[in-house]
C-alpha cells in the first residue's frame, strides 16, 4: 500500500540568511525513522509543489541514539531524528533546527557552546603524567552505578533546548554540564579537583541560574538524573560557599 509522508521543514541556507519553511511529500515505507525520511528527500530533492530544491541538510552519525548528532526539534520537541519513528509521529511532521544553538544550515546546528561549558566546569579527571602510578582507587558499586547513569550524557542538547532559562538573554550553562560535575566529583581521583569544579559552578551563569522548571529530566533521552545532580550540587555549592566565607 503506497502511503505518503508530509514533512514541514524549517530551513536556512547559511548562518546569516533568513529562515523559511518548505514542505515535502515523500513515499512511506514500514518502520522508517526521520533520518530515513530525510534521506528520501536527499535522493529526490523535490518539494511538495514539485519544484527542484536543495536537499535538506542534517547531522547524524550513530543512528542508535548514542551520539546525539541528529538532535532536532520534531513536532515541537527536541529529540533525536534516528529514534523518532514516523509511525509514532502525527503528520505533517514538523522539523526544525534546535533553537538554542546557532544554525549552520537547515537542521544542522553548532553545539560548540556545550563543549565550552564542559571546559568551563572542568568536566574531566586530571592525571598528572603518563608514568605508572599504580592501580587507581577503588570505587564502590553504588558510586559506579550512579556514575554510569551520569556518563550516558551524549551532549545532544535536548536539556538545553527544553530549559526556559537557557536562551540568548541568559548566560546559564544549562543542565548537562552540571550533571558532568556530579560525575567527575563522584570519582575518587576526580574528587581532588572537586572544589575547583564547585567554584566554576558558582560563577555567573552557573548552577544558581537554574529555575527548577525540571523540563531537562523529562526530555533527556538517556534518562540522566539531571535534577538530582542539580539538587546535589545545590547542596554542595551552598556548603562550599558558607565554608569558604568562614575560612576567608
Amino acid at each position, binding site marked *: 500500500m503506497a502511503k505518503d509522508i508530509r514533512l514541514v521543514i524549517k530551513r536556512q541556507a547559511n548562518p546569516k540568511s533568513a529562515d523559511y519553511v518548505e514542505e515535502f511529500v515523500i513515499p512511506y515505507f514500514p518502520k522508517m525513522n526521520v533520518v530515513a525520511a530525510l534521506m528520501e528527500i536527499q535522493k529526490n530533492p523535490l518539494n511538495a509543489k514539485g519544484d527542484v530544491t536543495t536537499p535538506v541538510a542534517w547531522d547524524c552519525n550513530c543512528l542508535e541514539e548514542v551520539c546525539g548528532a541528529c538532535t532536532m526539534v520534531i513536532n*515541537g*520537541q527536541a529529540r533525536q531524528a534516528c529514534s523518532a519513528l514516523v509511525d509514532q509521529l502525527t503528520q505533517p511532521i514538523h522539523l526544525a533546527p534546535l533553537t538554542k544553538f546557532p544554525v549552520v544550515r537547515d537542521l544542522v546546528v553548532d553545539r560548540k557552546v556545550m563543549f565550552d561549558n564542559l571546559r568551563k566546569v572542568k568536566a574531566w579527571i586530571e592525571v598528572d603524567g603518563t608514568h605508572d602510578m599504580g592501580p587507581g582507587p577503588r570505587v564502590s558499586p553504588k558510586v559506579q552505578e550512579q556514575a554510569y547513569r551520569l556518563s550516558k550524557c551524549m551532549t545532544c542538547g535536548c536539556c538545553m533546548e*527544553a530549559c*526556559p*532559562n537557557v*536562551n540568548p*538573554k*541568559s548566560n546559564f550553562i544549562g543542565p548537562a554540564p552540571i550533571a558532568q560535575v556530579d560525575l567527575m566529583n563522584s570519582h575518587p581521583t576526580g574528587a581532588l579537583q572537586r572544589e575547583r569544579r564547585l*567554584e566554576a559552578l*558558582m*560563577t*555567573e*551563569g*552557573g*548552577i*544558581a*541560574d*537554574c*529555575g*527548577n*522548571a*525540571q*523540563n531537562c529530566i*523529562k*526530555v533527556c533521552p538517556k534518562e540522566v538524573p539531571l*535534577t*538530582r545532580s*542539580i*539538587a*546535589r*550540587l*545545590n*547542596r*554542595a*555549592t*551552598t*556548603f*562550599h*560557599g558558607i565554608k*569558604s*566565607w568562614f575560612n576567608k
Partner: protein
Amino acid sequence: MSHSYFWRKLHSLSGILPLGIFLMVHMFINSMATLGQENFNRGVSLLHNIPYLWFFELVVIFIPILYHAFYGIWVVYLTRNNIENYRYFRNWLFYLQRVSAVITLLFVTWHVIGLRFSEGVISNNITFEFVSAALNQPVILVLYLIGLLASFGHFANGLWSFLVSWGITVGEQAQRTAAYGSFVVFIILTAVGINALLAFI
C-alpha cells in the same frame, strides 16, 4: 564564589526569610478580625505601639521586598517560557511562578500605597471601619482575592523551589513530598487569608 551566585541565593532566601514568615504573620494578625471589630482594632494599635517599629518595617519588610521584587523582575526577564511545547507539571508551575510574581508585585504596591502610606509616612487611620469600607466595594474585594491567591501561590511554590535550590530536597521522592507540603501551605494560607478577608464584609 561570584557575586551573582550570592545575590541569586539571597533572592531565594529573602522570599522565605523574612518575606514568607512575614506573610504568614500578616495573615495571622488579619485573622483577629474574625474575633470582632474591637479585637482587630486592639491588635492594630498594639502593633503600632511596639518599640523599634520603624526598624522592623525597614529591615524585615521593606528592604527584603524591594530586593526580592527588583531582582525578581530581572529573573522574569531572563526566562523564555516554553509551556506550549513542553507541557509538564513543573514547567507550568515555573511559568505560573513568574505570572504570580508580576501579579503579586502589582498587588503589593497598590496595597502598600493604599493602606500603609495612605496618610504619608505614618498612617494611624487603619481601623476595622476603614478596611471594611474599602473591602465592601466589589471591585476592591475581587482585586484583593486575586492578589491574595497570587501571593499565596507564589510563596508556596517558592518554598518548594527554595528547598531544591538550597539542596535540602535532593531525591525525587523528597521533592514530591515537599510539593505536597507546599500545597498544604497554600491551602492553609488561602483558608486563613480568605476567612480574614471575609470578616470585614
